[in-house]
């Protein structure tokens, strides 16, 4: 179960200012935000892999069922072990999130629960079906009709995707509240269906889904590329690489289109967020697009940025001379922290562009086969392994920190939602320790799985017998 986030990086809310200098205890509000960010940042990776890898598996499984080449069967089995590990981790970290919403933000949940709960109740079903289908798939080898077995694998992917899309609806509602009237601090005329189909949902879900495919595709392809660089089981890894990289490349090529639509949408609904993304302090016609640069919040300017004249106006409103609202149109107390949002946005777009270039190169490589065994080419993909996920985290930072100081845009402030319980800092330290050790163990396990590929799946060359 994926969820949404309540904000992040300490620097912006003055980590040091909020530290009690005598006792080195973090401020509770900051700790709650950090814990939520940490839990989501952790969960989002596992959720993405858990919902996308089943599709890679289904393709490879299909190839094996169709042409009987055992290498594809082995790839499917190897991947299914990864899926089992990631799904279980995603499932427990998702369970944790469903409690953390209340543990950290009880005031928010008290009011928001009945309004934005619809996608969660549907998501419960999708997630349940995913778990059932995964049971069939993982334990069903040689037990069921082979096409039924294949189908259960597809169900894992489809229901995982569905639960991801549903959960994004809840986050979209926080960006674009709908389905209630807010009168004198009361939430009246609640309509959970309207809340679910809020304005931000479609585009946010599209962007997130494509991002999940791109990041998982490049991460999986990168691992297999790294193995090919070492000349290990090249046949196995090349076939796996082709499947994963194809998914990643298609997604990376589509993402800019979705990103463009999202930017226009944000410009309309959350001008403060767009202004923070671009560090656009002053309202201006023919606004330039800033690339890079260091925002200076004190003097409300950006140093060392590369400016493309009129481009921001075009991207936000489809017109080079349109006026783009700056932060000066928004009261100072409602400003999101600019530098973090701006940097995160730059990171996301930068990585997205780089992955697009890699995708084009992959398409060329499918024609010029010698590239697929060229060291430089494989190294490039191997180095790109974590990039997609870094972009995903950066993207979430943009959407979450960009919404601050609101937990429900324009309605409830994050600071008013936090739990009254003191000492959240300790809970934050505890969860940090747990998530860090879990990540280490998972990397260790994957490393062992990959190391054992020659032992478990080595198929001697030319032995692709028919079944």
């Amino acid at each position, binding site marked *: *179960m994926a969820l949404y986030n309540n904000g992040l990086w300490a620097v912006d809310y003055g980590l040091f200012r909020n530290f009690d200098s005598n006792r080195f205890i973090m401020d509770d509000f900051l700790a709650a935000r950090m814990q939520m960010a940490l839990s989501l940042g952790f969960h989002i990776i596992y959720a993405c892999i858990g919902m996308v890898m089943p599709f890679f598996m289904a393709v490879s499984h299909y190839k094996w069922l169709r042409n009987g080449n055992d290498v594809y069967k082995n790839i499917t089995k190897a991947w299914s*072990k990864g899926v*089992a*590990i990631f799904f*279980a*981790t995603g*499932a*427990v970290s*998702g*369970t*944790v999130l*469903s*409690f*953390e*919403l*209340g*543990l950290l933000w*009880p005031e928010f*949940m*008290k009011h928001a*629960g*009945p*309004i934005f*709960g*619809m996608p*969660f*109740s*549907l998501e*419960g*079903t999708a*997630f*349940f*079906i995913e*778990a*059932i*289908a*995964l*049971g*069939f798939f*993982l*334990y*069903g080898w040689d*037990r*069921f009709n082979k096409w039924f077995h294949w189908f259960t694998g597809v169900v894992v992917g489809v229901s995982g995707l569905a639960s991801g899309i549903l959960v994004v609806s809840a986050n979209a509602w926080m960006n674009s509240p709908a389905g209630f009237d807010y009168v004198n601090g009361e939430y009246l005329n*609640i*309509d*959970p269906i309207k809340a679910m189909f809020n304005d931000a949902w479609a585009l946010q879900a599209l962007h997130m889904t494509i991002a999940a495919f791109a990041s998982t595709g490049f991460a999986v392809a990168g691992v297999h590329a790294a193995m090919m660089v070492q000349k290990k089981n090249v046949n196995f890894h090349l076939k796996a690489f082709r499947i994963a990289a194809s998914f990643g490349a298609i997604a990376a090529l589509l993402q800019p289109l979705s990103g463009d639509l999202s930017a226009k949408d944000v410009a309309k609904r959350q001008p403060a967020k767009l202004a923070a993304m671009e560090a656009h302090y002053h309202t201006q016609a023919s606004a330039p697009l800033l690339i890079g640069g260091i925002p200076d919040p004190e003097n409300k300017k950006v140093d060392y940025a590369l400016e493309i004249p009129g481009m921001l106006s075009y991207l936000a409103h489809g017109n080079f001379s349109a006026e783009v609202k700056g932060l000066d149109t928004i009261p100072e107390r409602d400003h999101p922290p600019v530098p973090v949002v701006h940097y995160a946005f730059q990171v996301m777009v930068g990585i997205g562009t780089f992955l697009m270039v890699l995708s084009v190169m992959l398409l060329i490589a499918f024609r010029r086969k010698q590239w697929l065994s060229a060291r430089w080419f494989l190294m490039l993909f191997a180095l790109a392994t974590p990039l997609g996920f870094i972009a995903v985290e950066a993207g979430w930072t943009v959407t979450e920190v960009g919404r601050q100081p609101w937990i429900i845009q324009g309605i409830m402030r994050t600071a008013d939602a936090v*739990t*009254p*319980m003191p000492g959240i800092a300790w*809970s934050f330290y*505890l969860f940090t320790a*747990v998530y860090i050790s*879990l990540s280490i*163990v998972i990397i260790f*396990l994957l490393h*062992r*799985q990959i*190391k*054992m590929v020659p032992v478990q799946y080595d198929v001697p060359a030319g032995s692709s017998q028919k079944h």
Partner: protein
Amino acid sequence: MEYIVITYLWLAIVLYFLLGGADFGVGIIEMFTSTKNISRTRRTMYHAIGPIWEANHMWLIIAIVILFVGFPVIYSQLSVHLHIPLVILLLGIIARGTAFVFRHYDAVRDNMQEIYNSIFVWSSFITPLFLGIIAGSVLSGHIDAKAHDFATAYVFSWLNWFSVAVGLFTVALCGFLASVYLIGEAEDAKDHHRFIHKAKTMNIAAVCCGALVFLAAQVERVPLANWIFGDAVGLSAVILATLSLVLLWTQIGSGRTTLLRILVGFQVTMILLAISYAHFPDFVIIRNGENLSLFTAQAPEKTMQALGSALLIGSVLILPALFYLYYSFQKKKVNGS
């Protein structure tokens, strides 16, 4: 529609208790298994719960979602006052789920297995303990919405004799559920006897812990005896549970494993019915008597309707698939062994 939602909430809790509980219990059994038999037991266990454990734990998520969508005030009150045991519960859930998967999917078998095993076993004990503590606290009347100091508001809300006794009772019941379940999974006659013996021990433990709960209720002035024996439904549920227990003891060696499973499931369901019926619709018992009721603390009409429909649609999709999952892996085991 509100009755449908409340029924689903109750069912999700009962099913989580039965299925998730048996699942925890398997780890508790592992804790009390001698080194000589441990690797066999582990194998039996893995075959028994491997394909189904993830699905078993979904009931918790369903219950939580029903709470926060349909009864947001209850959800947020509990989240605030039971923050500490909930965090421990979550850590237990994380540790247990990941250790179970990791120990199976670690491609290299070395002494890392020992670490996974001990994490799995300990978290299988601690998680239901705190689940029970949380359940006990909801009923204990120790949650004080107007508390001013940290200890009263956040610690004594759950750290009291009654909650802890319910926690131990939960652990014993989980072990009991699991051992009865495993009787049907035994690979040979020797294991069969071993699990029967375990079931008997666990049952005695559960009865003792049950008595402890009543004792603790007296100490903490929880009107437990009143709820259960002062009410026709509660009383008959307890009588039925006792009868099924007697029947269980007479049938335990008979080899009718399905009957045994039904009996043990029935028994636990009756216990839960007895404890939840008398104070219905009050769900959380609060110190000053301003209890949180499932009727007054519920979400607006439209939300309840949407939630109810979502649950109905969901069960049409989930239940057949779930039954087929259980059925398939039962059948295949019989054919395969």
